[in-house]
Each structure stands twice: as structure tokens, then as C-alpha cells.
């Protein structure tokens, strides 16, 4: 070590402390309307007069439902728009042709990337996938000591399972708890006991790893995790770098890891397969006996060919097997791998494509759709650039899946960005997607509207509904067959009912304006929806000339009646707590448990209340409870709160100490008439509906 290095290492460093500034800035940040549009904390409101009236629920019918005889629609004969409803303008940018081909050589791969890489390695947005919880399904029962009715993960698409931190088969519960998976015999509940635990092997460098997620398939438990550790050297790992000049010398790589455990003996699970794929884990689904894993591998450090390792056998993907779309230029150039894992025999097949970043995915039983939103105003430092016009657009890739066949099939593009997986849907061979388009003038949002696009199998536009709810953005979407429901929000919550029967001509059937908004919409039956979100109040400012302010309130849950589609109604509603109350179910549908048959609805909730006597309508509530709220729901009586369950001790509750994440309930599930709740640390079984505690255990 030379002198200067010694000095640098040993010099005493000054610290910075200015609590006043720290608090001032904190308050401002947390009150920011930018903070998240989702919650709209006192945003400036652009239109003022109508707002005050809109606080009262009013019902608007925009277009009358006028179903015509359905004509058969042939995708070979695509007509954009029709005479009754000409295509709105802005059909720009759809990729010219299917254009999907494979590279002929490593060299071609290199050249394509070098040539088409736009110098804006824009990190793009939108969510990573989190883990989820339970919703409802009816089980057959496993015979023996199993329940006859039990919940499974609340999934978007029937027949397409989603990974979660908890799985339930009506007798056993499989739960991720930190770095292990516990298997419990949970039925009957009073004899609940832990049978075994699987410690997920630590990665070499003990780096941070995302929480593991599970699938359950008969006597196989699938654990998905990832590692960020492997160091590759261009020389040592020549098989992945052969002939490629752009290969990095050393490279830290994130890998998605899938373990398959044989759990025929629940007390003694045995690891059967370990499969790893280069690239970080994006998301996955299980269809039948196949788990499909989507990974992304960035090329910002150079090109290193993707590989799969199956029980120690490495297979490098050849350039000749990598699919790409010759039309795509403006892209992040990542390898997107879709790997089909046959759970029964552990065999894998994969399709690698140069399909950019996969931010949100939607999976039907026959297709995986990955999306990448290009936010035009991210500059090359991946930081928001100032004053650039937004040209947000979302690129969609369709990868067809059929058992072990995986094929990159089409690329398409729409305006705007999408909220989450529920913004997408496939129905009758059409892909539907709801997006928000935003334009910024500098840092200020200057314009926004919302759109629904219907694309065919080639991801070319068949129909569109554009310009919905200007000035607002989408808060939740649910497609249900020939109808779509969209909640947009600025200060009141319009619920739009959209007719999608004719894919060429989607239109608004009706809308409902009510205060607050829904973050998640769950079908109750074909004519009713449950919405969960936040309540808000629009207050006219008492300072002259000042615009209205929207005050956030507690959480809100509502049942919408859409039997008369032209006049959707809010049938019931309940507001939970004061501002500051939130629920994991607002952003992760797997935390939402609902069983229509017995009306059970369970939500994990962090309850906040404003202490009595506080008059300031801008103050925030204090945390007074964390746990689940258990409701009985029916169309006549609405939401009937039966009770609450917490994993915090009486003492902690008394002192309002709810900071320990490991005791925070995230998921709930049921078997027959027993409700189970899970935090990272505990599992509790309570009787329905008395909620009398039957048994509690450490996980």
C-alpha cells in the first residue's frame, strides 16, 4: 500500500448531522403527491368545480350497451377499426411484421447487438414479482385426515398456478420462513405440528437473495430462489464465450434456482433436482405438470451465452437457438429465457430470445406474455431526465407454451405503461391490455389518459379504446370474459365497465364515480366485484383561488353491482381505519383470501387510527393493530366483521409495537372451518367464525 492509499484509508471522516433538515425533508417527501399517485396524498387538483359534487357517489352511463349479432372474427382478415368506430389515431409504431428469426451464428448475434443497441441502456420500470397468498378453491381432499374444502393461492387465471410463500393441500401447509421451508401437518388443527423443514442452501457469498417461493404438485414441492454469486471468467468458461468478442473477463451473475423436492414422506423431504438458469428470476407459473420460469440476463457487461444447469450438467444455449425480432431496435437487449420444467422427470427445455426486459408477465394456459415499458424520459444514467416529452410505450412478447414446447411467437407494441399482471388478459385468442399514457412537461405531469388495446395472435392491433379518463391513471383492472372493469383515479374513482365482445370495437358500457379508489378488483360473481383500495375525501380549500385538495382516508372495501352494466352501483362499502391504514392485499393479490361459498373474506391489515381529539385533517393515524380482519360477505348484508387475529403478543398490542416484520401476518388460508394465518415466524389456527384460537406454532 502506498502512502496515499494509507492516508485515504486512515483519515478520520466527517459525518453530517442536521436533524432539522432531516425531519423537514422527510415530512415533505412523505407528503409528496409524486410520492405515489396510487395514494394521492393531497395532490393538486386540476379541475375544481365538478370535484365537490363528485364526492357524492354519482352514476354515469357513458355509452349504452347495444349488443349486435356477433360476427365471427378471422384473425387472417384483420381490419383496423370499422365504419361505426373508426380506429382512433395513433396506431403508430406497431412492428412491421412478425419478424421473428434465429441467429445464424455467434457473429451474427454480436453484430446484431452492436448495431441495434440504442445508447440508452434504460433500466425500465415496473414491478418485480412478489409473493402471494391464498384465495379460494375447492379441494377433493386427500383422503385420510385431510379437509374437504380448503383454499389455494388466489390466482389470476384458472388453471395457471402462481408461486407463493405458502401452499396448502388441505392437510399439510408448506410455508417459507426466512431461509427455510416448513412442512406442517395442519389438519386437524388442534394436533397441528411441524413435520420437517427444508433449509434452502445458502449461496456461496451469502449475498442477499429474494424470498423463496413455492409450487406444490402432488408429492413434489418446488422451491424457487436465486443466487447472485457466480463469478465467470471469460477464459475459464469458454463454452459460454466461444467466439464472442464481447465476452467480459469476469462477471457476476445472478441465477434463478429451482429445487424439486420429493415429499412423498412429508417428514423427510428429499431433494431430487436442482436446476439453475443464468439470469435473474423474473416470474413463473405452473400449468399442469410444468413449471415455466422466466429469467432475464442483462447484456450491459458484454455477451455471455445463457446456460441451464440441470443436476450439475451444464447446457449452453447456442446463438443459433436464440430467437430475435429483426425489427426491434429500441430495446434493452437482454436475454429472456423461458424454461419449461417437467416436474415429473425434472427435464428442462427452453427458449431464449433477445426480447428485452420482462417487467410484468401474463400467462394463460397456452401463452406467456412478457412486457417491457420504455419510459422515454429515463436518460442514460437511468435517472429521470428533465423536460423531455414522454413517449412511453410497452413492448409485448408472446411466447407460446405447450407442455415442454416453448416458442417465441410474436412481438407487438402499445402506447403507455401498464400497472400489473391484471392489466393483461387473453380471451378467445385475443390479447387485451390496459395502459396509461402520461406526458410530462419537465417534472410536471401535463397530460394522461387510459387505453384498452386488443391484439391478435401476432400482437397486431385489432381494436382499441383510447383517451379514457383524461388526467387520471389506472389503479386497477380486471378482465372478465367479454367485459373489462377499469378503475382510474384522480380524485374520485370512476369504475368503467367496458364491452369487449367485439374485439374490433371495445366501448364503455357504463361508469360509476365514487370517492376513493380500488387497487384490486376481485370477481364475486359475474355481476358483482369486490374492490379494495383507499378512501379519500375532496375538500374545497377555504383559501380563495386555491385548488381542491384530496385527503387520504382509511382503507376502503366495496361491492360493485354491475348487473345493469350501464349503471354500475356501489352496493356496499366499509372503511377500515384512518389514513395510514394499509394492506399487503392492495398490491399483492395473493394476500387476499376469499371464498364465495361461505362468504369468508380475510385481509392482512396494518390499522392506523387518528387519536381522538386530533382535529388536523392532515394528520396521520397511529399504528394500533396488525393482523387479519375476518369478514363474512354476502350481497344482502355486505361486509360483516367477525373478528381479528394477530401474531403480536398482548403486551405488544398494548404498547402498539407493530414493527417486527417477522410477526406481521401476510397470508391466510383455510381448511374446512379452520382459519390459518401465517407470519414469517408463526402459524396460528383459529375456529371459524368464533376465531377462538385452536393452536399456535412457530414456523
Amino acid at each position, binding site marked *: 500500500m502506498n502512502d496515499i492509499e494509507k492516508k485515504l484509508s486512515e483519515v*478520520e471522516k466527517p459525518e453530517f448531522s442536521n436533524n432539522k433538515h432531516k425531519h423537514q*425533508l422527510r415530512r415533505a417527501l412523505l407528503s409528496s403527491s409524486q410520492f405515489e399517485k396510487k395514494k394521492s396524498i393531497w395532490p393538486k387538483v386540476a379541475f375544481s368545480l365538478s370535484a365537490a359534487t363528485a364526492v357524492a357517489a354519482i352514476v354515469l352511463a357513458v355509452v349504452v350497451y347495444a349488443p349486435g349479432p356477433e360476427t365471427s372474427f378471422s384473425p387472417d382478415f384483420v381490419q383496423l377499426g370499422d365504419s361505426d368506430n373508426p380506429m382512433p389515431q395513433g396506431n403508430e409504431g406497431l412492428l412491421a411484421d412478425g419478424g421473428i428469426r434465429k441467429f445464424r451464428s455467434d457473429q451474427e448475434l454480436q453484430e446484431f447487438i452492436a448495431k441495434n443497441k440504442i445508447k440508452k441502456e434504460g433500466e425500465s420500470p415496473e414491478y*418485480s414479482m*412478489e409473493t402471494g397468498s391464498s384465495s379460494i378453491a375447492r379441494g377433493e381432499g386427500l383422503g385420510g385426515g385431510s379437509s374437504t374444502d380448503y383454499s389455494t393461492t388466489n390466482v389470476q387465471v384458472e388453471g395457471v398456478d402462481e408461486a407463493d410463500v405458502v401452499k396448502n393441500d388441505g392437510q399439510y401447509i408448506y410455508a417459507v420462513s426466512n431461509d427455510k421451508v416448513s412442512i406442517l401437518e395442519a389438519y386437524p388443527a388442534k394436533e397441528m405440528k411441524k413435520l420437517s423443514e427444508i433449509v434452502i442452501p445458502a449461496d456461496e457469498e451469502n449475498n442477499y437473495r429474494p424470498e423463496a417461493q413455492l409450487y406444490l404438485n402432488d408429492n413434489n414441492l418446488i422451491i424457487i430462489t436465486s443466487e447472485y454469486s457466480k463469478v465467470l471468467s471469460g477464459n475459464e468458461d469458454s463454452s459460454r464465450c466461444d467466439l464472442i468478442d464481447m465476452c467480459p473477463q469476469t462477471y*457476476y451473475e445472478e441465477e434463478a434456482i429451482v429445487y424439486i423436492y420429493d415429499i412423498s414422506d412429508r417428514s423427510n423431504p428429499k431433494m431430487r433436482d436442482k436446476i439453475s438458469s443464468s439470469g435473474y428470476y423474473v416470474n413463473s407459473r405452473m400449468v399442469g405438470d410444468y413449471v415455466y420460469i422466466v429469467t432475464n440476463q442483462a447484456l450491459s457487461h458484454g455477451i455471455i451465452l445463457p446456460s441451464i444447469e440441470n443436476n450439475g450438467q451444464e447446457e449452453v444455449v447456442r446463438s443459433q437457438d436464440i430467437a430475435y425480432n429483426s425489427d426491434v431496435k429500441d430495446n434493452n437487449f437482454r436475454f429472456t429465457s423461458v424454461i419449461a420444467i417437467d416436474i415429473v422427470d425434472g427435464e428442462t427445455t427452453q427458449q431464449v430470445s433477445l426480447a428485452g426486459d420482462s417487467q410484468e408477465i401474463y400467462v394463460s394456459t397456452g401463452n406467456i406474455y412478457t412486457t417491457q415499458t420504455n419510459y422515454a424520459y429515463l436518460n442514460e444514467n437511468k435517472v429521470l431526465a428533465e423536460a423531455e416529452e414522454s413517449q412511453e410505450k410497452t413492448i409485448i412478447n408472446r411466447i407460446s407454451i405447450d407442455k415442454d414446447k416453448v416458442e417465441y411467437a410474436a412481438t407487438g407494441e402499445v402506447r403507455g405503461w401498464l400497472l400489473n399482471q391484471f392489466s393483461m388478459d387473453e380471451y378467445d385468442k385475443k390479447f387485451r391490455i390496459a395502459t396509461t399514457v402520461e406526458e410530462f412537461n419537465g417534472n410536471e405531469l401535463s397530460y394522461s389518459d387510459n387505453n384498452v388495446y386488443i391484439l391478435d395472435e401476432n400482437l397486431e392491433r385489432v381494436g382499441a379504446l383510447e383517451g379514457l379518463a383524461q388526467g387520471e391513471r389506472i389503479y386497477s383492472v380486471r378482465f372478465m370474459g367479454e367485459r373489462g372493469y377499469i378503475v382510474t383515479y384522480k380524485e374520485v374513482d370512476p369504475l368503467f365497465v367496458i364491452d369487449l365482445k367485439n374485439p374490433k370495437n371495445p366501448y364503455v358500457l357504463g361508469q360509476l364515480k365514487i370517492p376513493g379508489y380500488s387497487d384490486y378488483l376481485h370477481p364475486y360473481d359475474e355481476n358483482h366485484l369486490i374492490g379494495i383500495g383507499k378512501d379519500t375525501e375532496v375538500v374545497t380549500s377555504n383559501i380563495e383561488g386555491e385548488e381542491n385538495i384530496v385527503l387520504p382516508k382509511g382503507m376502503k372495501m366495496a361491492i360493485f353491482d354491475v348487473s345493469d352494466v350501464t349503471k354500475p352501483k356501489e352496493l356496499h362499502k366499509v372503511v377500515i381505519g384512518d389514513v395510514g391504514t394499509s394492506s399487503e392485499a392492495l398490491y399483492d393479490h395473493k394476500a387476499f383470501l376469499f371464498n364465495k361459498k361461505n362468504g369468508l373474506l380475510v385481509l392482512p391489515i396494518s390499522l392506523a387510527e387518528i387519536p381522538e381529539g386530533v382535529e388536523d385533517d392532515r394528520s396521520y393515524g397511529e399504528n394500533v393493530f396488525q393482523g387479519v380482519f375476518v369478514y363474512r360477505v354476502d350481497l344482502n348484508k355486505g361486509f360483516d366483521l367477525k373478528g381479528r387475529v394477530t401474531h403480536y403478543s398482548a403486551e405488544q398490542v398494548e404498547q402498539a409495537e407493530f414493527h417486527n416484520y417477522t410477526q406481521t401476518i401476510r397470508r391466510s388460508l383455510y381448511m374446512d372451518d379452520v382459519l390459518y394465518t401465517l407470519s414469517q415466524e408463526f402459524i396460528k389456527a383459529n375456529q371459524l367464525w368464533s376465531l377462538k384460537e385452536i393452536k399456535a406454532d412457530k414456523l
Partner: protein
Amino acid sequence: MTNSEIKESFLVAKSGDEEAFGRIYDYYYDKLSAYVYRRVLDGENTQDIISNTFFKALKGLKRFKWQGASQFNGWMYRIATNEVNAYFRKKSHYHFSAPEDLEQYFFDNSSTDDVQDDASRKIDLQKDFVEISQVIQELKPKEQTLIHLRFFEDMSMREIAETVNKNENSVRVSLHRILKKLKLRSGAKQLNQLN
């Protein structure tokens, strides 16, 4: 804050929970303000830079895709670093401007004087650091960043690579080169002082 707490807070914050953002803020305010302060050695400018940094982080939150805590850490430092660079470029023209609807939170500037006193007092206490900073500040801003992250923020090569968005090897090579340059300069400086 552990990595899993950061992740949890991030995801919850992204979903619209300001308290979760508050947790991230509390953790990073201390880290980033110390980093920025060491780079600019001025309390008032540190406040401006940090304020801009957090508003940008807040804005970018929605668009940030979680890929691990070290990448998130790198992202936070990168925003702060970009602000520091902007400050070096604009100097007296560099300001913090509060979003219009939040100006009310920044009206009270009575703290400014305290900060300046505070800052100068601290720098007095640490002459060694001021001295070494003078040498560092003769480097290009990008070079300064590497030195700061390595020696004062105690980052590993990989963390630095995440922050400056380069591969690790090129960070290593650059640091080696910069240290060599610094050594030459400090040698020359001492020589001058002797003369």
C-alpha cells in the same frame, strides 16, 4: 436495516405506503448525506443535493425494478452521485427547488445558520480530511467518485461497479490508475512545500 427489510420497505413503499418510504429514507439519509458532505464539504449545499437526491429517488421508485439490495443501494448512490456531479458543474447555480405543492415545508430556513456553523466547526476538527480532499478535488468528478466510494464509503469493488454502472474489472483498473495519479500529485505537492 437488513437487506430483506430494505426489500420489504421498498416493495411496500412502491405500492404506496409512505411510512415504508420513510424507513428507506431514514436509513439512506444518514448514509447519503455523509457521503455528499464529504464530497462537497459544505453543509448548505449538502442539504440541497440531498433534497434533490431524495425527490429523484422518490420519483424513480415506481420505475425501479427490484433486482437485489446491492443494486438498489447502487441506484441510491448513483442518484446522489449524479447530483454531486451536477453541483460541481453548476456550482453557484445549483439549487434545490421544492415541488410547488411542497414549498410550504421548506419556508423555514432558520436552520441554515446553524448548519454553516456546524459545518465549519466540523471541518476545523478534521484538517487532515480537508487536506486530502483538496488533493482529491483536483481529480475529475468521476475519478473522485471512485475514490470516495472506495475509501470513505467503504464499498467493495462490486458495490462500486453497481453504483457507477461499470463492470468490476474496469472499476479496479480505474482505481489503480487514479491512485497512481494521486501519488504522483501528492508527491509533487510535498516537494513544493519543502521548497
